[in-house]
């Protein structure tokens, strides 16, 4: 069973993504912000990370940079964000994100993208 780490500061969104991915049969780990996400990465190695961009303490860009540059992990990273400001999107891709979704998004689309990213990462 594939393990996905989700970092999202909105509890409503976190819970929704959790339920949606759980329904698809994934093992989902929740974190409320970037800092918690990095702490979880100390002890767990997920198969994929889904992260919001704008989070308190440690934001999405820092998470991506940490995962790619410091931990040298090659797992797929999917970024979620409101607004979709072009500079932020480009920065996320520059740092090593694999895909990007703008809110509001449909859960069906999320599931499809997760499936695709996990498939290509094998």
């Amino acid at each position, binding site marked *: 069973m594939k393990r996905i780490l989700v970092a999202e500061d*909105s*509890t*409503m*969104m976190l*819970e*929704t993504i959790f*339920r*949606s991915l759980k*329904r698809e049969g994934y093992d989902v780990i929740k974190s409320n912000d970037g800092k918690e996400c990095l702490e979880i990465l100390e002890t767990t190695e997920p198969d994929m990370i889904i992260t919001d961009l704008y989070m308190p303490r440690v934001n999405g860009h820092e998470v991506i940079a940490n995962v790619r540059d410091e931990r040298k992990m090659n797992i797929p990273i999917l970024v979620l964000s409101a607004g*979709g400001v072009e500079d932020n999107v480009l920065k996320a891709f520059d740092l090593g994100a694999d895909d990007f979704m703008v*809110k*509001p*998004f*449909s*859960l*069906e*689309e999320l599931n499809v993208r997760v499936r695709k990213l996990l498939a290509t990462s094998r």
Partner: protein
Amino acid sequence: MTSIKQKKPIGFLLYWVFALIFLIPLNGISKNSKDNKAAIHRIDQAPPKSILKGGQPRKELSDFAVWVLGSENISSIKKQLLAFGNNFPPSFQPSYFQFVKKVYTYPIIILLLLLIGFLIANILTVLLIIYFGNNIKNHKERYHRIFLNSYEENLQSYLFGDIEWDLVRLKLKRTNKKVNRKILTHVLLSFKENLKGEMDEQITHIYLKLGLEKDSLKLTKSKLYYRRIEGLKALTNLDPKSAKEIVPNFLNDSNYLVRTEAQIAYVMHYPESPFEFLKTLKNPFTPWTQLSSFHFFRLHQVPVPVFETYIESEIPTIRNFSLRMIIFFQQFESAPAIFKMLDNEVELTRALAIRAINNLRLYDGASIIKDMYPSETLNNKLEIIKALKNIGDEADFNFLESIIRSESISLKTEACRSLHFISNIGTERLNLLGQGNKDLNIGHFVAHVTDHRN
């Protein structure tokens, strides 16, 4: 200066209040009632102490007090205060009577003391209000948080099919209370802002099943603008059908924020003609609304209308917005309408029309804008010269040269830029001009316009 007799009693009332509130026992309380009576008699009969040099008797009351209160009021107040003292316990009365006497002997000092006491009481009152206010606020926040979490959890369970509607309905507690219904609407809006797809219909379904659209409709009829916005926003996002009917009623609302909300909602709900409301607008189309509706329009990939339709509006902001949109979406077919705007009385409209001619490369416009040049403002002259860089040709060289010879620095700079970039022949012409007229310092201008930083 008003006479002392005419002085009306704001000071009188203050004095009365201070005197009653601030009862300081200035002497020890005597337990013996006979002693009390003797004390009262002594106090009443004792001559006032002298404070003037040479032992002259001092006036009972200062001029200040007389000025504040009026002399007639003063003796009546003193009598009333002394009479009031008879209500106190006998042990306390001598202290009270002595206090009253002292007040009339040293009014300013006592007043100050009373004022300090009053201010301290004020501060304490404010602190109490802050404390209880905070408590109430914290309670409300806690209440809000508890129900928000509960509603979110239950509605998510329903949306994901974990529980049936009947069970959810039971679990959604206190939905008869207005504050709870507000929280429910907030939860649904939050879902709507973050999710789309199959959830869209379900969220609307929940909103209607709970009867929340009635609350939102009621809010739209409120006299308070922020409530109207709240209602409009809820309906726009959660009940598009109702929103489509009522949004046009708010397009010309008296409050500009309500108008903004309605206009953005219109773009959302009428994708077949998202800017049709511009035809019926009676107020200016504000920059914020322009930006928001444009952003929404682009984000949701609404089909692009022909903005030429709105270019002849009487409202300048609508005309200018239309011109900007024509430029952005490169609507070449609007060329005749753009040329018409060159005659407009508003400077910015003419500037945008020139910019449109430049951006859309409407070469036919070159001669028209050159004819406009002598009568235009400085900003529009700059726009014309910039346009010639893209749509000008050799026929315009003389025109540009005349600007370089005679006009201001900013116009000369742009004319040099245009002449330099029209063609290689333009560059040569510029060099010749510089060689023949050293005083024009053409070299400096060319260096400036060819610097990639400019």
